[in-house]
């Protein structure tokens, strides 16, 4: 096997030639981040594994259609997004109204300046319990907002990649990210982390 990481183009060419070592390298590189993303979206171990399996099945089926305009990683996360969406039909509820704007507005006065300013969390974040608190709070964030937050903060995808994956506009992505972060802050505040 090559010692240097393969470029996406070279890797795809080898996969199209049905090279099993390249397939193994692709699965080894991408399956755990995909699994982690699925787990972060609330799927249990078995469901997350099934989703990753589905992603690679679709990936191989569509191999010849991939034109290489996006990164392989972006493409795989895109397939995962649609597979998760298939599995969870309740996603539409994310689109419904939520009270975020009202609760965000409460932080500011009529002129838009802080009423209840943010706290310096650095000291608090040193605690071991904060990880569990964030996980708990993340679980309460609606799916689409959570997905954007996780793709951005945990998987490190840039806004272009996220918009492509989820097929949303940049503005919509910003709104979802804003709502996810605000909900997390509100939830942590409710738990006394402030």
């Amino acid at each position, binding site marked *: 096997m090559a010692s240097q990481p393969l470029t996406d183009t070279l890797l795809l060419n080898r996969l199209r030639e049905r090279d099993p070592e390249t397939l193994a390298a692709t699965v080894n590189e991408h*399956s755990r981040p995909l699994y982690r993303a699925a787990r*972060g979206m609330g799927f249990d171990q078995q469901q997350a*594994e099934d989703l990753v399996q589905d992603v690679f099945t679709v990936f191989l089926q569509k191999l010849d259609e991939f034109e290489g305009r996006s990164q392989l990683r972006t493409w795989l996360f895109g397939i995962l997004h649609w597979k998760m969406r298939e599995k969870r039909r309740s996603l539409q509820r994310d689109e419904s109204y939520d009270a975020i704007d009202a609760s965000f507005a409460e*932080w500011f006065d009529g002129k*838009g300046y*802080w009423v209840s300013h*943010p706290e310096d969390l650095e000291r608090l974040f040193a605690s071991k319990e904060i990880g569990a608190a*964030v996980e708990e709070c993340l679980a309460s964030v609606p799916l689409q907002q959570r997905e954007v937050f996780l793709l951005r903060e945990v998987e490190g995808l840039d806004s272009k990649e996220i918009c492509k994956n989820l097929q949303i506009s940049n503005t919509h992505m910003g709104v979802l990210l804003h709502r996810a*972060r605000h909900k997390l802050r509100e939830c942590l505040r409710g738990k006394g982390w402030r």
Partner: protein
Amino acid sequence: MIHIMNCREIATLLDSDAVQHQRWITRVQFRVHLWTCWHCRLLARQIKWLGKVARQAATAGPEADTDFEARILRNLSFPPKQI
């Protein structure tokens, strides 16, 4: 007349990662506001910390077992290319 951005607008830009998509004048105002406003700087720090903690929590969470990749590979149909 130049619109002076308030903390709420700065907080919205910070939360939505939208600064780089703004006009240059907005980006300059954003920088100046952050430089002068301790509370907005705290929010920027909070956002960074939230991301860091979420990353740590995700990587510290239950991992797939060691046989995971092998199972995925076993279940994939990858027949040799027809010549």
